[in-house]
């Protein structure tokens, strides 16, 4: 609860910081504020509580995921300073929007009531629409924002419709009550229909196939730092929320639902991977790779009772690798018209550290040991095998092999081609963000216990 209040307060402060002429200090202040909030959040880890008639429920699940979101936001805000250098007058708006987005994200994982869940998802989505269109003089960015807004609001509508049907079936918005009622006999047919609609809306938000068509265009068109935000933070939020929704509302997924999840999971990872193989634009490639990762994360829904820790671990590993990768991508393509792979040629010679970091984050996404991506995939596979879905795991393995094809395309370009131009100076903040993100990634890869067991009772 305190987390949500303080985050909103920080957001408001960032908006009015202009008045006090604090623009230069804005980013350090925001980061220090977020660090303080992070400490506050973690301190609530062992103190479950609920507020406002169960509107907000604070438990280990919400605290762990909120902490992850805060960490990711800190990274993203740290990168913003240099990214928006030419738009100093807008800086406070952008930072404030990101912090409000974080508030929405926290609301989404700590809701106890579907109304709160919907408010959270709207706060998050509207912030994203704005950020996607934030390069207002560029037609690509406008297109991305418009596309995302139209399709996203459609998905929100579907979710809202689902919530209404569930209310009609049970008479409650409170998910504890819904959970109780869903076990009993004679639940009206509106209930599964409503649940399906909510799941469809969420699948849209995490860009799972066949609801993924918006993602590549929006990712490519949006400013790089927004793409970083969408592919790490926003995806992780939506995935955690979907998990919490299903786990919170039904005791066990009916078999038919499970089969659908299997199909969507395998489809998502395959479509994402196969499309990624054909991309030359790095942002588009990572968009498709993100789609395939969403497919992997969906596997967590197949072992609903035990996979919370695994999901937390997977999302952490994926998001940290994503942040590190995007820090390098933003740096390399800073003064370029596009984000084609050609821009990365010879990075191994011109900027060995950044090349090494990008390599490490790609290896992590590909699931090579010692990076946390490996353990993430591994514990997901173990969970899924325990639930009896061996063939989904085999599909996952085949997809991991395919994914090497495009991750390594980028690595090869960095190490074997010659650079077209001489290197320019790198602002310190990129090194800082990328190095810390990748060190965290490797650290939790070597000591997976720290995260993996957080949520197991």
């Amino acid at each position, binding site marked *: 609860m305190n987390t949500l209040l303080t985050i909103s307060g920080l957001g408001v402060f960032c908006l009015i910081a202009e008045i006090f002429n604090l623009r230069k200090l804005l980013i350090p202040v925001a980061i220090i504020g977020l660090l303080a909030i992070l400490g506050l959040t973690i301190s609530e880890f062992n103190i479950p509580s609920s507020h406002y008639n169960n509107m907000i429920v604070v438990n280990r699940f919400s605290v762990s995921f909120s902490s992850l979101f805060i960490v990711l936001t800190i990274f993203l805000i740290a990168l913003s300073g240099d990214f928006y250098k030419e738009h100093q007058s807008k800086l406070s708006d952008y930072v404030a929007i990101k912090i409000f987005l974080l508030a929405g994200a926290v609301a989404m994982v700590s809701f106890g009531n579907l109304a709160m869940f919907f408010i959270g998802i709207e706060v998050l989505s509207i912030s994203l629409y704005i950020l996607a269109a934030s390069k207002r003089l560029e037609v690509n960015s406008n297109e991305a924002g418009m596309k995302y807004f139209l399709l996203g609001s459609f998905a929100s509508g579907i979710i809202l419709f689902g919530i209404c049907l569930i209310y009609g079936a049970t008479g409650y918005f409170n998910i504890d009550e819904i959970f109780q009622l869903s076990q009993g006999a004679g639940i009206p047919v509106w209930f599964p229909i409503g649940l399906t609609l909510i799941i469809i809306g969420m699948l849209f938000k995490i860009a799972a196939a066949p609801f993924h068509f918006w993602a590549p265009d929006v990712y490519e068109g949006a400013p790089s730092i927004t793409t970083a935000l969408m592919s790490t933070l926003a995806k992780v939020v939506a995935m955690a929320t979907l998990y919490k929704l299903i786990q919170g509302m039904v005791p066990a997924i009916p078999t038919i639902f499970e089969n659908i999840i299997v199909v969507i999971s395998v489809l998502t990872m395959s479509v994402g991977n196969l499309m990624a193989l054909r991309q030359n634009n790095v942002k588009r490639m990572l968009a498709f790779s993100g789609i395939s990762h969403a497919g992997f994360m969906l596997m967590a829904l197949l072992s609903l009772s035990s996979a919370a820790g695994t999901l937390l671990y997977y999302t952490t590993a994926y998001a940290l690798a994503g942040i590190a990768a995007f820090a390098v991508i933003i740096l390399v393509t800073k003064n370029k018209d596009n984000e084609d792979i050609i821009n990365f040629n010879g990075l191994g010679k011109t900027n060995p550290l950044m090349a090494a970091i990008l390599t490490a984050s790609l290896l992590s996404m590909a699931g090579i*040991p*010692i990076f946390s991506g490996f353990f993430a995939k591994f514990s997901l596979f*173990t969970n899924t095998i325990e639930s009896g879905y061996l063939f989904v*795991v085999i599909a996952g*393995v085949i997809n991991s*092999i395919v994914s090497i094809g495009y991750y390594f395309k980028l690595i090869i370009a960095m190490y074997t081609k010659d650079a077209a131009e001489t290197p320019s100076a790198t602002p310190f903040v990129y090194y800082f963000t990328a190095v810390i993100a990748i060190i965290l990634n490797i650290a939790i890869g070597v000591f997976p*216990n720290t995260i*993996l067991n957080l949520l197991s009772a």
Partner: protein
Amino acid sequence: MDVSILLLSLLIGAIVTYFSGDKLASKVALLFSLVSFMLSLNILYSYSNGNDVSLVREWISLPKISFALLADGFSLVMVLLTTILTPLIVFSSFGKSVENAKKFYALVLFMSFAMTGTFLAADGLLYYIFWELALIPIYFIALVWGNGDIEERKKDVLKFFIYTLAGSLFMLVAFAYLYTKAESFLLQDLYKLNLSFQEQTWIFLAFFLAYAIKIPIIPFHSWQANVYQKAPTIGTMLLSGIMLKMGLYSIIRWQLPIAPQAAKEYLPILVGLSIAGVIYGSILALRQKDLKRLLAYSSLAHVGLIAAGCYTLTIDGIHGAVHQMIAHGFVIVGLFFAAEIIYRRYNTYAIGELGGIRSQAPKFTSLFLIVVVASVGLPGTYNFVGEFTVLYSLSQINIWFVILGGLTIILGAYYMLKMFQNVMLGETNSNSFSEVTIYETITLVLIISFLLFFGLYPKPITDLVHPSLNEIFSTINSLK
């Protein structure tokens, strides 16, 4: 003192090498690889005095994964092979400048670290992690420092990476499945599992895919010749001298004891495939015009015979395979090094352009000849010991296997001596060939003296590996 100190010394060595700068890198790498060699001798000494040098620590509580290193005679022999060959391989590059040396030697040591870990690990997941870790450095070594056209090399090396990763990911699935059965990844727990025949078959196949690609056994060999040819010689030595032994070691350590019934059921197919590799490799070696490719195919033939020995499921076959693994590790490093010596002078591996080296470099000729005859398994060399034991074990299975497998000796002698004739004898090439340098001589002499010594007196190695191999053998044959 336990075996983890070996891993530590190699890992620290890799890091220190990276920070020592390009000029010092090769010397620092040699120093650390020698230190790890000394440490492994020390560990061997304390092991043979009856001390327990294994290590088991809990690493991750859920899923239950331990940091377990098992040191028995068998794994120690393989570790020694790694720690002897690593300084030799590093030393063999002395006198030749390497671009970006600090990264190169750091990768070499890191790879040595990962391979040592693979030989020692006694926990399925830890083993898998080391197994995969060894792949990353060799990928970069072959990609960045390789020779030949960059576009083609890129394709070949990527193919190699995807191939091996694909195989090992199925092994990972097998481990995950085993974990759900045993609730543990520890080797001894996996040995105790009672698996149905069907389960064993699938697990056996998943392991087989990983190992058959790594070794390689046909039909999974298509990456091999290209990568051996295009990798820098040090990379080729690491690949053929040590890395492929990871696959052979794992057959004996993991695959056969965990799924023995499946191994028994498919014995004729497995031995048949391995023998097919022997014949196929030998025939292809006959036709090669590139020295490195010829050696690559000869290696394919030899490891085919080793794999056949493992899959006979006889104690002799396994013993012979272990001897042959060590002998092959040395001899193939020697052969590739000889090829490298020629390349340093003539800048070519094409056999057609070589010839008449003998009259200009008699010392090199004699040394090369000894390595060549060792590789064809002449009595008195260590290769003879292993090869003969494996052939003997094949004769216990089926006489046809031994007849076909014996072809490796005949064909091997034919193509190796023909190669020697074309490269070293005949008319003098117009370019002059300078005699081997002191570094080169030392390297070759060390390899040769090892092969001759254990060829005449293989007892120390037999004594070392005998108890642990017997133990594994009894696990394979215990009723499951």
